[in-house]
């Protein structure tokens, strides 16, 4: 069993702070209106708390052996999972019920969605996965 990774408070707070800042910047930059800044800024405490929970969940999953503790896997698995969930909920707004799309049109619609949702959450999740400490193999063998 891999030793559960200890996560210091200062580390997790730094991550959460950076993620909430990044979320505000990316979301505001990709939106047309300056009022979006207020909206996203008002969301940032939620983002902050959510990021802290997210970090601990990732580490817990890694300790359980469900996630492989590697920068790629701890990014790609939750990212794909959240993309799927969000796509299920919002795809109705991007593709019409009466669609007759060519492949290119469909891709364009999906790219709209990707730009709106996947870009911000991808960047934030990427930041988290880079900054979370990775368990050392030696510790495991010694334990």
């Amino acid at each position, binding site marked *: 069993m891999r030793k559960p990774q200890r996560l210091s408070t200062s580390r997790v707070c730094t991550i959460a702070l950076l993620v909430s800042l990044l979320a505000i910047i990316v979301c505001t930059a990709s939106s047309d209106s300056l009022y979006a800044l207020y909206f996203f800024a008002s969301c940032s405490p939620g983002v902050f708390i959510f990021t802290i929970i997210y970090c601990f969940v990732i580490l817990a999953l890694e300790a359980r052996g*469900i996630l*492989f503790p590697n920068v790629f*896997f701890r990014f790609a698995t939750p990212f794909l999972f959240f993309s*799927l969930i969000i796509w*299920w909920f919002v*795809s109705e707004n991007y593709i019409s019920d*009466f669609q*007759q799309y060519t492949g290119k049109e*469909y891709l364009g619609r999906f790219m709209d969605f990707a730009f709106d949702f996947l870009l911000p959450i991808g960047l934030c999740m990427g930041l988290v996965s880079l900054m979370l400490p990775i368990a050392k193999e030696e510790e495991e063998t010694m334990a």
Partner: protein
Amino acid sequence: MEGSKKRNPYKTNAMLLVVIGGLFLLTHLFHFAFRNTIDQPPTPAQYAAYLPLDSGAKNAHLELKSLFANNLDRGRLLPPLMDPVTGMVMLNTVKEETNYSDGNVYYRLDSSGRLVDSLLVEDYYISLNREYIIHPNYYYSWFLDGHQEKREYLPVNEDLKLGTKALQQRYETLYRDAELVQLFGYQMLWGNGTTEREKRKYYDTKTDKAIFLIRNKWYALYGKDLKTMPGGEKKKSLDTIRQLNLDQLGVPNPYLYVANFRKDSKGYEGWDGTAYLNIMMGKDTLKVSTGMTLNESVGKQPPKYVHSLEYFRGKTMPFAIICKENNRCYILKSN
């Protein structure tokens, strides 16, 4: 530690990735490949001959002509009005611009349906009294004579020198002669645009204002408690033009109906698509096709569709006014 039961996190994670990725792919397969095969039946060939309508359409008997040159966002259209004497038609659109002004645009059509003139009034508290456009501080007689300038009321008792008794007498004589009367309480006067001095002079003494139309001249009487004087307002409206009822989609009627609608895409609360209209006048029919939005009723089976076409025609009018989605207006005339 090294038992066969031990999970291999690498394998587990790879499996997880494959499962989620597979679900994602399936979703897209459903959205693109499966739903793309659902198509609506092709539009019957008879609709190919419908004339496209942008700025107008005409055939041998009827002509539909756009009333306004460009299709700007011109706000809500109020029901058209007609002067029963001259047969002139007034259209009024209102757009809320800021908290302190509305953009009122008035259009004047002559009795044969030609757009003669238009007037923009940007202010608050604008109302219509017969053909006069009334603001507490000025009025327009534009609909009668085409003058585009603001006109001042002829002031009576502006210096507030009349006593209560004399004021009442003055009010009664003016009221007796007046064709139209409108009253403004002091609360809605002396607000924006008045100087501090005027405000002290009129607002603090609770001065109301009453306006009287006497022999085509408007008089404004200033005084206290005019709102409670006997008689009240004399307000008139030009004749409203009869609006014909066309709410049933696809059900023929003798003036205008949507014969067919082809859905193109789902909009916010309905369908965007092409409507095929049969427009009739007398025995003649004009067939046009135009882009339109249909609102779909929520939760009703089968769903009801509501379009936003309006058709105005008085009994004696030689033309009809057809409005589409509130901002496109057309005049229907026979050639």
